[in-house]
Each structure stands twice: as C-alpha cells, then as structure tokens.
C-alpha cells in the first residue's frame, strides 16, 4: 500500500540522531566552519550513535542491522540538519565499509570490516569526484590498467572526505575509457602506496569544517586482490544510486535547517509595524520552501524504498538528486534573502548553509546510506 509513516524503530533512530544534531552539533557548527575543524568530542559522541557500526555484519563485530536506504535518508536528513560537514565526516567511513559489505570478497571483508567496530571512528573513505569542469561519473578519467598481476591506477580525485587522515582509500577508476558505469571498478589503495600522493587540505566554498583532499595517482600499482570484489567486481551504478539517495537526504536536511531558521527569524523580525512574516511576499517564499522540502523528501523516500526492494533506481535516484540539488540551493538562497542584510553576515548561519547548498549540484559518490 501507500504509506508515509516511518516504523517505530525508524522514529527512534531519527529522534536520537536529531537530538545529537541539535544538542552536540548545531551549537558548534559555525565555529567549526570558521576554524576549519570539527571538535573531537562532537565526532566521538556521534560515533557512539553507531551509524557505521550498525551496517557491519555481526561476524565482523558490528550490529548487523538490515540495510535500509530509507532509514539512511532519514539519518542523513537529521545529521545534515545539524551540520553537513559533521554529517559527512561521521559517515565517510561508510563510503568504504558499505561497498565492502555489498561487494567485497571474503578476504576483503575480513581485512576491512573489523576495523570499523573497534574504537572510535576508523578513517577510511572513497574517492569518486575528479577536479575537472566536465567531470562525469560515466566517463571517469581516473583509469586502471590491468597488468603485472595487479592494476596500475592513474588520474586525479578531489573532494575526498577525511583524506588527510584516511588509512585506506577506495578509489573508483574506469577500466576502459568512455564505457559508462559498467566499466568502473573500485580499488583499495593504502596510504603510503607508491604512486599515491595525498594533496593538501582542500579549500572549498562550503564544508569548510570537513577535511577533504585531492589525490593524485601516478603509476600507482595495487595487487589484484585490491580490486573491490576481486574477480566479481562491483555494481558502480548501484553504489552511485545509494550516493544519490544519500545526497537527496542530506539536501533535505540542509534545506530544512535554512527554512526553519528563516521562518523563525521572519516571525520575530519587525518592520513597518509588524513581523516581516506577515507580508505575503515573505510568507509565500516560506510556504514555497516548505512545499519543496516535502516534495523532495517524498521523491527521495520513494526512490529509497525501491532501492530497498532491490529494484534498479538509476532514473529515480538521478531525478531525486537533481531536484534536491536545485531545491536546497533555492531554499538556502531564499533563507539568506529573508534575513536581509543579516543573511549576508557570518554571525548568522544561513550564509553557511547557502555555501554548503551550492555543492550538491556537483557532489557525487557520497554513498553514506
């Protein structure tokens, strides 16, 4: 049937993540953006929510929860409502863990999964995006050439979360040029591998609290067993579907934070003898924001539900993500507008949310659900 009500368990998860976002994250978000760093205790507390550990099967020390993209988008929304950089920092390890769970060989699962359930956040990540204006998931220019019992990787990656501290990178590369998603495979590259250069901390428009780096791969050789899934490989399209769903969920969270803030501000700020929210121009902007947030959320949920049913969701996840990116930008921009001059000042959070929001159009490969 058609049903829009989360399960009791999902409600509980959502509430605990929301409480963390409200109490531990939001109060520190602005300083984190200014300082370019997230306080350790914010991450430690968030790690205790078990969002990555829950995905790890019990055999490897995790909670072994059944994977649910819907639950993932609910979590993504609540974390991003607190702060997008914190959300991505906290969940970046899943960028490596989840594909290992889904596609890893027994050997790869043994090797990597236990690392996520020991003590605190284990820094691992994935590298998808490339620093080119014509970056294309279906046309990666990072390539992997087979030979010498292994693979040789070359190319450049950017916006790699936790890159400064990650011990292992799951690098996606095309095994043949211009052959779409199906040509893409994942390769585990450890820090220190010859041919892998980890760049300086990137300077981005938003996500300033998030450690992201560029990677350069130049004749970087990895053994055959480092190919994700070894002989069987992986389903890159599906991993990217999960990324699109995650991004839609994150976008809804960022948009909601901007909308809530602007709505509250508009009710308090007075001009011409009344609250500015009492003018239709402002009230209608807020009404449109509310509608658009709900609209994107429903599309994301439907795509996530189909994903959980095992259906292919390239179309649904792609359309949801495109809409989410447009929507979050528009909502954040309107939030700045509602705050007028104050919206432009870094004492208020809305300009940060606008800087974060613009990235969604280009973000790919952040499969944190």
């Amino acid at each position: 049937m058609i049903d829009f009500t989360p399960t009791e368990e999902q409600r509980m998860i959502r509430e605990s993540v929301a409480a963390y976002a409200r109490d531990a994250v939001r109060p520190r978000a602005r300083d984190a953006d200014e300082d370019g760093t997230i306080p350790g205790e914010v991450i430690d507390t968030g790690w205790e929510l078990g969002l990555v550990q829950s995905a790890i099967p019990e055999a490897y020390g995790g909670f072994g929860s059944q994977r649910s993209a819907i639950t993932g988008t609910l979590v993504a929304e609540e974390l991003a409502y607190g702060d997008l950089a914190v959300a991505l920092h906290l969940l970046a390890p899943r960028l490596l863990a989840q594909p290992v769970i889904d596609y890893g060989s027994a050997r790869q699962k043994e090797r990597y999964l236990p690392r996520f359930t020991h003590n605190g956040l284990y820094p691992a990540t994935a590298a998808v995006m490339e620093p080119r204006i014509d970056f294309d998931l279906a046309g990666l220019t990072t390539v992997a050439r087979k030979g010498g019992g292994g693979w040789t990787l070359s190319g450049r990656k950017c916006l790699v979360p936790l890159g400064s501290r990650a011990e292992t990178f799951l690098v996606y590369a095309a095994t043949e040029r211009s052959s779409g998603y199906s040509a893409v495979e994942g390769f585990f590259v450890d820090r220190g591998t010859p041919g892998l250069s980890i760049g300086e901390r990137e300077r981005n428009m938003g996500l300033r609290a998030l450690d992201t780096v560029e990677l350069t791969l130049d004749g970087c050789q990895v053994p055959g067993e480092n190919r994700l899934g070894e002989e069987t490989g992986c389903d890159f399209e599906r991993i990217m579907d999960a990324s699109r769903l995650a991004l839609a969920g994150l976008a809804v969270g960022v948009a909601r934070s901007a909308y809530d803030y602007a709505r509250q501000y508009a009710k308090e700020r007075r001009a011409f003898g009344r609250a500015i929210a009492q003018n239709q121009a402002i009230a209608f902007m807020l009404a449109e924001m509310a509608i658009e947030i709900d609209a994107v959320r429903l599309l994301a949920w439907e795509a996530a539900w189909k994903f959980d049913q095992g259906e292919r969701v390239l179309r649904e996840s792609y359309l949801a993500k495109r809409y989410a990116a447009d929507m979050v930008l528009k909502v954040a921009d309107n939030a700045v507008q509602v705050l007028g001059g104050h919206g432009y000042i870094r004492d208020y959070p809305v300009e940060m949310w606008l800087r974060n929001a613009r990235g969604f159009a280009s973000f790919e490969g952040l499969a944190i659900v």
Partner: protein
Amino acid sequence: MIEFKLSSAVARMRQITHAVAEGMMRPISREFDEREHEKPWDFIRTMWSVSKDNPVGGKRGKSGNGAAAEEADDPVRNERNLGMCVTVEELSWGDAGLYLSIPNAGLGGAAVNAAGTPEQRQRFLDRFKEGDPKWAAMAITEPGCGSDSAAIQTTAVRDGDSWILNGEKIFCTSGLMAAQESKGFVVVWATVDKSAGRAGIKAFIVEAGTPGMKVTKVEKKLGIRASDTASLVFTDCRIPLTNILGSAEVPKTSEGFKGVMATFDATRPLVAASAIGVARAALDFVKDELCKGEFSLRYGVTPTKLSAIERDIMDMETQLHAARLLTWRAATMLDEGQHNNLEASMAKAKAGLVVTQVTQKAVELLGPVGYSRNCLVEKWMRDAKINDIFEGTQQINMLVVARRILGYSRQELP
C-alpha cells in the same frame, strides 16, 4: 512503514479506468471540445451505469466507507481517498472535461455526505443508485466574490416551514445538469445573517426544477469545455426547512463555516489528481513523439551534459511526480483519519502550478504541431489551466500553507 506500492485493488481500478480513458474518452475528446454545449450522452449513459455500482457514501458494507479491500493480501486500511485520486488521474488523463461531465454526486454530494443528517443522505444521495443519470453541484462563487467566500451575498430567510433564497451564483460546475437537466440538486451557500459574517453562512440543498432557481447562462471557456459551467439566479426560491445542511443556528464562532470549508480538504487532493492526469497526458505524448526520432533520456548523465530538451523533460517528469506524491500524501492522511488541511493545500498549490508549466511546455516542445487543433496537446494546455484556479486558487492555497506554517490567523496574515 514507508511504502510506495499501490494495493492490488487500487492498481486494478487504475487499469480499468485507463482502458475507459483510452477507449471511450480519447476518441471523443476533440469533438466535445469543439462542440462546447453539446453533451456526450453515450459516454454519460455508460459511465452512469458503471457509477451506480460505486456511489458516493460507499456501499452499505461493514465499514460503509466504500473501501474495496476484498483480497486477503490487501490492506485493511481504508483507501477510499487514495483510490479516488488514482482513478481521477486516469479519467483526466483521458479527458478532464469529460471526467467532470460524468453524472455523479460530485461536490454537492460530497457536502451532503460530510454534513448531512442520515435522513438527508438518504433523501439526496440514494437517487444516484438508480434511474436516469443525475448530477449534483455546488454553488458558492458569486459575481462579486470568488476567493473571499465569506463575502457571499446570497441570502436565506426563514419563512414558516421554508427557506427563501435570493441571489446569484456563477461558475457552478455541472450547474446546468444538476439544476435543470436531471433530477439532481444544487448545494447553495447562502447567509442567514449577513451581520454575523462567516458564522451566518450555511449550505442549502435546492432540488432540480425548484421554482425560483433558474439557469441564466452556460459559460464559454478556455478549456474543460465538455463540462457545463453555469450561472444560477435565485428569485424567492422556496425550499423545505429540512433542506439546510447542518444546524440553522448562528453560532458565536464560525465553526459551521469551517466545517463546510473542511470539505475542501477532501476535494483539493482530487482536483490536484485531475490536474496531474492532464499533465501526464501531455508529458506522455511529448515523450512518445520525441522518442520516434533520435531522442533518448539519458538518466545518469552528468547534468551539465544534458541537452536542453532532456533537461526539460526530466524536470517535467520530476515535478509532476512530486506533485503526485504530495497529493497521495494528502489523500492517505484522510484515509487514516488525519487532519490534512496543510497537506491538501500544499498538494493543490504544487499541482496547479506544475501542470500549468508542464502542459504549456509540452505545446512549446512540439513546435508548430503542438499549436495545431489536430493535436490534443493544445487542448490539454487549455484544460490544465483551470486547476490552478478553481477549488482554491494557487495564491489562496499558498496563503493557507503560509498561515499554517507560521501559525498565523487571517488577521495576522491577510
């Protein structure tokens, strides 16, 4: 739990309705758009015989709510409103004007169902299960007031065991058929006490053919031409005292008025659904035409590499489906017995805007062919536009949403 699968009952209804839309409505679509004031009687009679099995108010079954959960694997929960949205979308995909011309209890019947006594429901609604085709209509709008329904001037004065109605109504959908051409009725909003404002506004049932009610005009419209839109004039129109819906008392508050307005919470999702059907017709057609050539929709391609037309079509698909999910949400809330005033207005505001954009863009994308009356797309653009206007204009629905999200009254946000 969150789920997006239509039950087999609703899915089957959709399939059947789609066959009606394609097989019975599309072939006569253009004809009844061109011949505006003629009625498609063959279609009407066929739909009447079908609808007598599914009257407003539901069959007298266990739940009495018209739910069709017969199969073991179907949910127990009522799906009446969701099912109607799905059905209405298919009928409107066929032809929105023809859909509105289907004989049924309509808005008038919905009001009786919502606010009438059991005796009134029997007296006015049983007729839809037998005999010749009938229509019921709702008359609210007047020459001087549309959105501001609290400003209506039509009066109802008590005289012995009667009410006497005086006034003029315009833009009454199916008004001709309900007031004059069938044994139907019109639900007329009138005030029993102008000084009381909203609190004085009541709904009255006027049977077809009642002396003093006269159809004075049938409009010529941009679209939905198969549907008759009538002006009704009431001149000392005498109706029984028992034809008032609800209580005759003028309360201190406007609770009664709010009660009738609440009917809109149920009808707004249906109008949104109808709009979505029209837009889907246009979108389906455009995609089919484009795909006859070299065109393909490359989902997954980096967005900056999409062609302009790919981008347009993807936007249309996305927006239309978003409107559909918002509509289903509003309908599902009704089925779950939840208050859906905010969600119904969100759905209507979004749908009205989206279908206008989608159908207008569809004509554009078809070049000169889109402009020709040999092609139904120009008709769908004309049919779509009304959905952003009736049952609450987009601006009024945005105002409803705004007041709700801000917690403002009418006075605080005029």
